[in-house]
């Protein structure tokens, strides 16, 4: 049976068929759906959300050492978080197969940077595979498990957004039941004390030689002979773009196993063709190594190393062809930036916070990052997961030292707090800055599409579990001033800010209300007095002051000619923020 699957769905299917036993991840676009799809196999596979990628890789490595076929998945920046155990896993090697998936995001569709994680495989000295479509993605999970067990190496599987989120046809197979390998205590392999690691480094270098031999032999790296005037070396999605442009007018060396590279195969291929192109997305990972081996090729001097590649760019870069395009005045098209949803509890929080003078707001990664956009403009920095609290701490230390009047407010989400905010908050306590940390607890990992986390009370596979209590954690970390507020009550928020600003010690404000799109859990129904409704503007009373419009609610529309606001009933969920900000009480609730 053939099914149309995304790369992520295909990987989950491939992992199931490959007989894996354990998988862990922290959600991150474009990798999120891998674990969501694996979670379905409750009988065969233990699938978990970890609080962060480092924990996910460490648990997968633990499961592998025990003897299970294991997998951890993350987006590209997640591997930065997991870099520590990733490098160590290169030394320990595995027992049961271990596949680590990094989903890079060329084009920054939803990321804070654009990094080419193929370099991690080389840096960490581990094997790497790169699929070009969903069928290959499925097949490669299984092959990667075998490579991992055969060569005693973790295998890095490098995907990109276009492989993760595009669908192509996949042949569905059966699960192979793979027994868990016996566990044997082995200090010389899993105990990375310096004396042991020293010996292991030698083994890692020997392993790389064997992996290079494999790279030259494996069918994952194959040649497709056509016209020999042009030869193309390519991997991943870039291979599909090269095929789209050149079809059978060029010969191809398609690389599916890309660390170490098959240098013998590359040399032979290069000798046979007249002009050699290396077509790759982002960095010249293959090209640099090909050139270092003394082989002449054309790559990044023609193909850009920024943003996502596509067939048009390959065609233009290598063949100099300009496409015929319809010409028109694009400048009249108005931007459509993402916004905080109608009824989002973060909107009220940022609306109130943005009124504070002499405040630096350090932000983080999640829906609430959008609080930095117009019209709220309530953010000064966004760096990476967990950095809001520590960057805020660094700033506050300087402010204290230089007797400045400013205050720092660090804003972080619930999932991000568990991810890496907790250690930063401990630093605030330990190194004594009086930052105000605000945990925007909307009861779910919202930005990636509603994944559970330690604070929701449920696991990935739907089991009820102990719910982590952010207020108690903050107190346990040494914060003495903790307050929980309902962000949809502006007076309550204002009082909380007044309270926090008056303290000479660090404080935590937990702004707690479920995401407007969340399907409420049993816990939520008990805790939150939630009543959906609709708000309406009395056109007679509206004075056109635009205060309600400046909350940035997508349900509110300002008619420039009539100079009046109105509310789109289809979008409004009745959060009543606009009612609270309207100075002339022109907005009221009109029932459900």
């Amino acid at each position: 049976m053939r099914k149309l699957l995304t790369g992520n769905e295909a990987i989950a299917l491939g992992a199931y068929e490959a007989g894996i036993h354990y998988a862990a991840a922290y959600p991150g676009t474009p990798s999120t759906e891998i674990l969501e799809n694996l979670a379905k196999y409750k009988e065969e596979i233990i699938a978990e959300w970890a609080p962060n990628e480092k924990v996910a890789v460490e648990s997968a490595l633990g499961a592998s050492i025990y003897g299970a076929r294991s997998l951890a998945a993350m987006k590209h920046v997640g591997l930065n978080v997991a870099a520590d155990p990733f490098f160590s896993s290169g030394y320990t090697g595995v027992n049961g197969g271990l596949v680590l998936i990094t989903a890079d995001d060329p084009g920054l569709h939803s990321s804070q940077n654009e990094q080419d994680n193929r370099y991690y495989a080389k840096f960490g000295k581990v094997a790497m595979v790169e699929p070009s479509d969903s069928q290959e993605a499925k097949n490669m999970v299984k092959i990667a498990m075998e490579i991992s067990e055969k060569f005693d190496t973790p295998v890095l599987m490098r995907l990109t957004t276009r492989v993760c989120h595009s669908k192509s046809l996949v042949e569905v197979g059966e699960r192979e039941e793979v027994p868990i390998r016996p566990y044997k205590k082995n200090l010389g392999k899993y105990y990375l004390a310096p004396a042991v690691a020293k010996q292991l480094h030698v083994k890692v270098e020997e392993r790389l030689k064997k992996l290079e031999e494999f790279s030259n032999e494996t069918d994952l790296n194959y040649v497709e002979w056509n016209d020999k005037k042009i030869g193309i070396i390519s991997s991943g999605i870039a291979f599909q773009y090269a095929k789209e442009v050149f079809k059978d007018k060029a010969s191809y060396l398609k690389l599916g196993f890309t660390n170490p590279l098959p240098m013998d195969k590359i040399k032979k291929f290069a000798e046979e063709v007249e002009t050699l192109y290396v077509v790759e997305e982002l960095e010249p990972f293959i090209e640099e190594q090909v050139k270092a081996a003394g082989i002449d090729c054309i790559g990044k001097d023609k193909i850009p190393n920024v943003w996502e590649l596509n067939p048009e760019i390959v065609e233009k870069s290598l063949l100099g062809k300009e496409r015929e395009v319809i010409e028109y005045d694009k400048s009249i098209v108005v931007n459509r930036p993402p916004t905080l949803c109608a009824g989002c509890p973060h909107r009220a929080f940022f609306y109130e916070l943005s009124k504070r003078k002499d405040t630096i707001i350090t932000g983080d990664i999640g829906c609430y990052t959008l609080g930095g956009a117009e019209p709220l403009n309530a953010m000064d920095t966004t760096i990476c997961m967990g950095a809001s609290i520590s960057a805020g701490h660094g700033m506050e230390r300087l402010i204290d030292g230089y007797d400045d009047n400013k205050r720092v407010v660090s804003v972080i989400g619930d999932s991000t707090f568990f991810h890496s905010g907790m250690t930063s908050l401990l630093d605030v306590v330990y190194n004594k800055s009086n930052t105000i940390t605000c945990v925007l607890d909307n009861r779910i990992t919202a930005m990636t599409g509603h994944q559970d986390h330690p604070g929701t009370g449920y696991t990935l596979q739907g089991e009820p579990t102990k719910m982590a209590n952010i207020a108690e954690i903050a107190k346990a970390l040494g914060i003495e001033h903790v307050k929980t507020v309902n962000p949809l009550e502006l007076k309550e928020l204002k009082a909380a800010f007044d309270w926090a600003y008056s303290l000479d010690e660090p404080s935590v404000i937990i702004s707690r209300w479920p995401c407007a799109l969340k399907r409420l859990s049993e816990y939520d129904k008990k805790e939150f007095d939630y009543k959906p409704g609709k708000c309406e503007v009395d056109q007679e009373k509206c004075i056109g002051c635009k205060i309600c419009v400046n909350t940035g609610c997508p349900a509110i529309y300002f008619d420039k000619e009539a100079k009046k606001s109105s509310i789109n009933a289809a979008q409004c969920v009745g959060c009543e923020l606009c009612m609270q900000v309207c100075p002339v009480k022109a907005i009221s609730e009109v029932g459900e």
Partner: protein
Amino acid sequence: MAETKSILLVGVGGQGTILASRILSEGLVEAGYDVKMSEIHGMAQRGGSVSTQVRYGDEVFSPIIGRGEADVLVSFEAMEALRWLEYLKPDGKVVVNNYKIPSAPILMGKEEYPEGVIDIIKNKADTSIINAAEIAEELGNMKVMNIVLLGALVEAMNLSDIDWEKTIKNNIKEKFIDINLEAFERGKNAI
């Protein structure tokens, strides 16, 4: 050999473009084509612009295209058609929903929704205008706008021979099947 065709579907987060693309892709697979589909959504569920690409033929390589390559552009919202018009082949077709969704800067009164969007498109390309919102409203559920547009697309691309009823049934919750099948027919007849 059937030449590879490229369909670009664009709209605003929440309009159901991805579901429509999914039904379209499954129908094409059933019809025996090689199919690739790509979703470019990023943070679109927060009200941003969404696009999906569906490519079909004997053997499809790239799941995405560049500018000047789409055989048909289906826009679920008027201004979005103009945003993506440069992706259309100069002799390609546009199927555009005559329905406006103001974006955040427009809602705030900072910018105006551009005037005459549909006329500009009509002057540049072979264009079919569909009042999908009106049709959906007549049917009693605004959410079926996406299936109205799918019907229009199927007619525009001469894909009527495929068993769309079956594919729609596979992808829609049972209690909404009838209204969606009707929406599909209305869309087909609207072009």
